[in-house]
């Protein structure tokens, strides 16, 4: 029974990892940019949520009303002001620029908030449980994270395949030059993609901050989890990313169940195993 509960925990944790990953996946899909700063942006949004909750005395989930638009605007500005200038040359330059943004963010957060561990106080949401038949209990928070991940990925899927904006995203992803001939302003569209990515990031950041302690240095590890979820699922497939997150989550909780020290290691091990056995990922779609 304990094992089943561990697996269920892992599945639900996968929802959080899918939230980490879907914004990263969107950016890579639309503009072929591997945003190294993605993890630090998750941590940044957790800190911004911390400031908002402290200042207004609201619940962390309510703080999203401010954090989401703030991060979206920041994303648009970041893209048009910095990343767009580095794109359309070779693939290395944008990666280096995003690495620079990552270093800057970590140090700016360290300077502003110190290296202390923080947490978003979510009241009884942290401890609420649903009792399942068979004497099992699952936390309301993990369930909520998983449901939000489903909604975000479902929403992204709808946007990409059933709206004009989504069609524009996919055409730019296919062929940037020809997309311009359709009347698409690539620089603006990339800005919108980054805004959307950081809107998702801010939801992920708030859940991260409720679930665990955070400090300015934990960004890169979240970025690696996100990358692993994307690659396990197969590049370019959002539901695959959710599955990748779930597999990573199960691997980590099972690792921790065997020995608490094995949590992260087990996740990386499963990732490496899948990379060896099926390097294109489970739902490979990339051309």
């Amino acid at each position, binding site marked *: 029974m304990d094992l089943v509960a561990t697996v269920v925990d892992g599945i639900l944790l996968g929802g959080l990892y899918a939230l980490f990953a879907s914004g990263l996946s969107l950016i890579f899909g639309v503009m072929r940019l591997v945003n190294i700063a993605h993890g630090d942006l998750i941590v940044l949004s957790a800190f911004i949520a911390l400031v908002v909750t402290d200042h207004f005395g609201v619940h962390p989930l309510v703080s999203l009303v401010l954090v989401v638009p703030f991060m979206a605007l920041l994303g648009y500005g970041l893209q048009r002001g910095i990343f767009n200038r580095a794109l359309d040359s070779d693939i290395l330059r944008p990666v280096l620029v995003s690495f620079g943004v990552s270093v800057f963010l970590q140090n700016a957060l360290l300077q502003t908030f110190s290296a202390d561990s923080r947490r978003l106080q979510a009241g009884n949401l942290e401890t609420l449980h649903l009792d399942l038949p068979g004497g099992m209990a699952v936390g309301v928070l993990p369930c909520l994270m998983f449901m939000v991940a489903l909604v975000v990925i479902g929403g992204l899927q709808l946007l990409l395949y059933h709206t*004009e904006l989504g*069609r524009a995203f996919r*055409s730019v992803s296919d062929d940037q030059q020809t997309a311009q*001939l*359709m*009347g698409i302003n690539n620089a603006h569209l990339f800005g919108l993609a980054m805004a959307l990515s950081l809107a998702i990031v801010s939801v992920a950041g708030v859940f991260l901050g409720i679930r665990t302690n955070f400090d300015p240095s934990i960004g890169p590890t979240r970025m690696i989890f996100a990358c692993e979820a994307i690659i396990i699922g197969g590049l370019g497939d959002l539901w695959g990313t959710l599955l990748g997150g779930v597999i990573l989550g199960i691997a980590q909780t099972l690792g921790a169940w065997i020995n608490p020290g094995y949590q992260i290691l087990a996740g990386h091990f499963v990732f490496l195993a899948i990379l060896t056995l099926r390097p294109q990922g489970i739902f490979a779609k990339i051309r």
Partner: protein
Amino acid sequence: MESNGPLLEARALTAFYGDFQALFDIDFRIERNETVAIIGSNGAGKSTLLKSITGLVRAKAEAISFDGQAIGGNPPYRIVGQGISMVPEGRRLFPSLSVEENLSIGAYSKRQGPWNLEAVYAVFPMLKEKRSVPATALSGGQQQMVAIGRALMANPRLLLCDEISLGLAPVIIKEIYAQLEGISANGTTLVIVEQDIKRAMAVSDRVYCIREGRVVLEGRPRDLGREEMTKAYFGM
């Protein structure tokens, strides 16, 4: 508000790829409702000329004017909205979009006019049956029809077609050119880039021959002899 001058005019147009100069002082003019063919061998600068007009290759502001307005140096996405569409060489359909999505994205600039999905399907009925198929799963001729339809969806006043007969069977080429004639008859000005001199002279009101980035011959097909064209084409 339409001026009375030519629809499009290029004056002393130059174009560069880095240090390499691809066009040298091109003077080029397209009258309203005329069909102009540009011929020339590979690398002569035909595609570069079209790319300069659409903004994909940068031009000086005063070098190109469209309906009396300077459009040189405008970004491509704005030029589409001003009424110039291009069918790019090699079709360049979006592989992850269906036929209908490829057509719809052509209307992204929201220019008003007679063209919409129904109108395109009326001209190319076989596309309607294949509307939900990925565009790159079609035959070459059908892909070319999608590319033309996609450009029409922007309701252009000037349609630039870059080597649309390349790699297609003669019977398909004939059909596509027949449709283009109809499109031209409805008031769209056409520029056609062709390597096939005979076809270019048959469909156009006026011909420009480009060699090594310069206009070497210009005139009406009936005034120019085949021999003169061939000489200009090969630089003999």
